[in-house]
């Protein structure tokens, strides 16, 4: 077979392969939405993080502003220490709330930042003091049953 035709076919084959890979990366995968610019790191302590996982999103008003870097366990306080990487473009006040929420009924868990009114902003390595734990369904149900039972007994 003619050598140039062979080259053209093989070139086309490789080009289609690269195009498919790019399609998988951009369209199917999350390569584009994953890139944070420069980040700063803050930590937050929780009694219970529920099913929170590293690389889960950190959102504020529903917009992704960062990602969870790592989750450790503090043996002094017996608390979970979550390290968050936040995009440098989004400064948050010192009295920001960091709450763990669930997207949807059974979806993945994420941390929501709710800005306070402090004039000072969080800096690299700061700790968010105002946190709210993940909601554990069993606790919620038992609270509900307990309050129902106490209502019944009052009647």
């Amino acid at each position: 077979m003619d050598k140039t035709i062979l080259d053209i076919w093989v070139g086309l084959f490789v080009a289609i392969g690269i195009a498919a890979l790019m399609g998988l990366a951009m369209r199917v995968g999350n390569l584009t939405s994953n890139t944070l610019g420069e980040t700063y790191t803050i930590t937050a302590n929780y009694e219970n993080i529920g099913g929170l996982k590293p690389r889960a999103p950190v959102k504020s008003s529903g917009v992704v502003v960062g990602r969870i870097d790592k989750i450790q366990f503090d043996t002094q306080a017996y608390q979970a220490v979550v390290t968050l990487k936040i995009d440098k473009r989004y400064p948050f006040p010192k009295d920001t709330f960091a709450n763990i929420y669930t997207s949807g009924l059974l979806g993945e868990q994420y941390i929501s930042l709710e800005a306070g009114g402090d004039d000072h902003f969080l800096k690299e390595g700061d700790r968010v003091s105002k946190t709210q734990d993940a909601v554990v369904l069993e606790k919620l149900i038992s609270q509900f049953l307990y309050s129902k039972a106490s209502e019944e007994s009052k009647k």
Partner: protein
Amino acid sequence: MNPIFKILSNIGNQVTSRIWRLGSATRLFCLTLIYSSESFRRIHLTIREIYFTGVMSLIIIVVSAFFVGMVLGLQGYYTLQKYGSSESIGVLVALALLRELGPVVTALLFAGRAGTAITAEIGLMKATEQLSAMEMMAISPIARIISPRFWAGVISMPILASIFSMVGVMGGYLVAVPIIGVDHGAFWSQMNVNVDFRIDVINGLIKSFVFGVACTIIALYEGYDAPPTAEGVSRATTRTVVTSSLTVLGLDFILTSFMMSN
């Protein structure tokens, strides 16, 4: 002789011959790697083989990927719809294709389409004493025949697997969105959120690369080792398909357990 001894010696014979074949296949693999600089210096040899193994396999890969994607879409929809989450059909199709079906089915089809061709070609070259003739002319058949085919297979397989996954996702899209009526935006956005580039796409590529090495070297070894008769070549071709398929499925389990462990 005692029949028990006969059975035992039979088993021992089988095991030693398997190990012997594994060893000589490894030797061929090492020789191929040593001579691989030759196949890149004469790049047109490798390009010619990429044409025959990669480009010629394109049609069977694309058609089967399309149908696999459509079937995944349909089957996924019937089950997911019971739980009211038919939007996550995109995630199901994409993850199934990227992690498992893309690399594995591509490797199985590759073994059937390109592996057999390689085995038959080299077996026939051996039977007609073309390989010995090359050696007589002081041309190493491993550098000239084996190595270009090996690299062609190794390069083609990840490309074919990427094309398989992408076409499969398109097949799933075609069934889910226009035919069944899943929301277009939800299909892509759910897929986007749940498919990770590093974990899913790159691991799929690593898998297909490993399968490419395994399938090609098995096909080459079976051809190189085939008894130089018509029957020998036909048996070698059959063995290529059987051994490649089993190796791919076994390797898939091992690779998956390593990739999913962290």
